[in-house]
């Protein structure tokens, strides 16, 4: 090899510049990743530090005190949130999964694509607009707020999340399995129900849990639909129900510092719930991907 050829191997000139650029991109993306993690740590950390002081068994099991008094708890908010999110899930999860099954298993591409687009747009609709829509649809004709109205709004928020994640998961089911089922003389709907859906079950549950986690903290629609409620633990969805996000919102607007601490504590409860749900969902998804050989 001549000296000239060796020169090409030296780190200088163009190669040096490319290496520097490479390093720069690497550092920038690492910093961005650290920032993203830091945001989560700071949010969770500060909520924990500020809220843990007010958190107690009493706080979790006592209804909110009357007329802006402090010393109450959030049991009514927990129950209300659970009822409203539960009803929303019962509405949105079956519909969302069916929509996904339709688009991935039955609809021709020229229909499936627009449906997918519509779901993405629906997912992008600001939730306050969903709230106003349901307000006009249910609260105005009825003349009062209700937990059910809030559930409908939350279901509308959940629907595209459930449907889109379910679509992703169903398309991951290997085509070879459906092919094998068809080749055995198993009808298509039966293949879908007995082969495709069970294979994707873990992922379908994951998508549903993530959607629940997402709407559990949804506040904007609840302000219109279920924010003026009677004291005490209510369980009747035809009435307005308390909820954790509304509790946080209202307590944080209070002039009393004790109420602020209670808002932090409620926020801690909410964030712990959402984190736990996310972790469970991820674990299930990992298991389900393994099953599908992905």
């Amino acid at each position, binding site marked *: 090899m001549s000296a000239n050829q060796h020169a090409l191997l030296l780190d200088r000139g163009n190669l040096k510049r490319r290496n520097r650029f490479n390093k720069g991109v690497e550092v920038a993306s690492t910093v961005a990743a650290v920032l993203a993690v830091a945001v989560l740590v700071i949010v969770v950390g500060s909520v924990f530090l500020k809220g843990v002081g007010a958190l107690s068994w009493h706080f979790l099991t006592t209804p909110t005190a009357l007329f802006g008094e402090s010393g109450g708890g959030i049991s009514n908010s927990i129950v209300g949130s659970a009822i409203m999110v539960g009803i929303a899930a019962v509405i949105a999860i079956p519909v969302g999964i069916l929509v996904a099954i339709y688009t991935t298993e039955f609809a021709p*591409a020229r229909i499936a694509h627009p449906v997918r687009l519509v779901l993405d747009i629906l997912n992008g609709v600001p939730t306050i607009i969903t709230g106003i829509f349901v307000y006009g649809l249910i609260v105005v004709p009825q003349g009062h707020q209700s937990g059910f109205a809030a559930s409908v709004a939350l279901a509308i928020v959940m629907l595209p999340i459930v449907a889109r994640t379910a679509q992703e998961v169903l398309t991951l089911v*290997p085509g*070879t*399995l459906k*092919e*094998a*089922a*068809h*080749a*055995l*003389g*198993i*009808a298509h709907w*039966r*293949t879908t129900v*007995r*082969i495709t859906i*069970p*294979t994707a*079950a873990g992922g379908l549950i994951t998508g549903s849990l993530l959607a629940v986690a997402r709407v559990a903290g949804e506040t904007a629609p609840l302000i219109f639909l279920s924010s003026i409620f009677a004291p005490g633990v209510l369980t009747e969805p035809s009435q307005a129900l308390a909820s954790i996000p509304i509790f946080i919102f209202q307590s944080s607007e209070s002039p009393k510092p004790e109420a602020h601490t209670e808002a932090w504590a409620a926020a801690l409860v909410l964030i712990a719930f959402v984190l736990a749900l996310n972790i469970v969902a991820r674990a299930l998804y990992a298991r389900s991907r393994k*099953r*599908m*050989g992905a």
Partner: protein
Amino acid sequence: MDVSRDSSQSAPMTEPNPDPQANPQTGSGSTGPSLSVAGSAGRGAVKRSRGEGTVELKDLNAYYGSTHAVRGVDLHFASDKVTAIIGPSGCGKSTMVRCINRMHEEIDGARAEGEVQLDGLNLYDPRIDIVAVRRAVGMVFQKPNPFPTMSVFDNAVSGLRLSGASRGELDDRGREALVGAGLWEEVKDRLKAPGVSLSGGQQQRLCIARALAVEPEVLLMDEPCSALDPGATLRIEELIGELQQQVTIVIVTHNMQQAARVADTTVFMLDGELVEVGPTDKLFTAPDDDRTEHYVTGKFG
């Protein structure tokens, strides 16, 4: 181990029960034929009778959109023979085989023209139920694909269970199928283990058991050993020899030695056309067509 064919195996003694009721049009409930225009699917202990499971392709053409993948093939698959289809990649051999159980048309934009007759019955007749076709013509794929949510046993009986067989018959027929696929001894103690926990070769035999359980007339095998190691391949090839008494076997293979080992008849395809068909020995040693000779001697492909 010698897997080359025992000449006695391909002799007519493979037909223990000549059944006079071989006409599939009658669709008698007690005998084999599970397919008929009338749609009365028969089921029960199947004893193969002469002429059951003969497949005849008549001017078969298959397309993917505007691509003409199989061009005017006329071919006869005898019921007591193993037929191998060889040819270079993309020659249409898999496509042709997938026309026999009408899996070809599952693909978007794919269609087939011409006739595929099973015991004289045209499977492309508009009155024919496609699900019944798949039950009469089973298929084993390149990669073992047991259902991941099911146990070994449930995989074996999946075709039966999901097409409405009664619980009572599942136990026996699942066992029969696993015995038939030469898997019973290996899995009888772990029938409840997941099907995907078996080795690759065992999984492929499980797929064969699954196909056999619905008692097809014909078993299509699309390169069934291409994902397997030599030992597992040998096991499957032995199995093919055992199964030919029970079911007409059509095997697509990339491996010419495999065709030579397992097949009575070999078909050579090129560019969607049938070039030559003949007894395996003749096709490999004294082919009529130059293209066949060039292929089997390794000049291309």
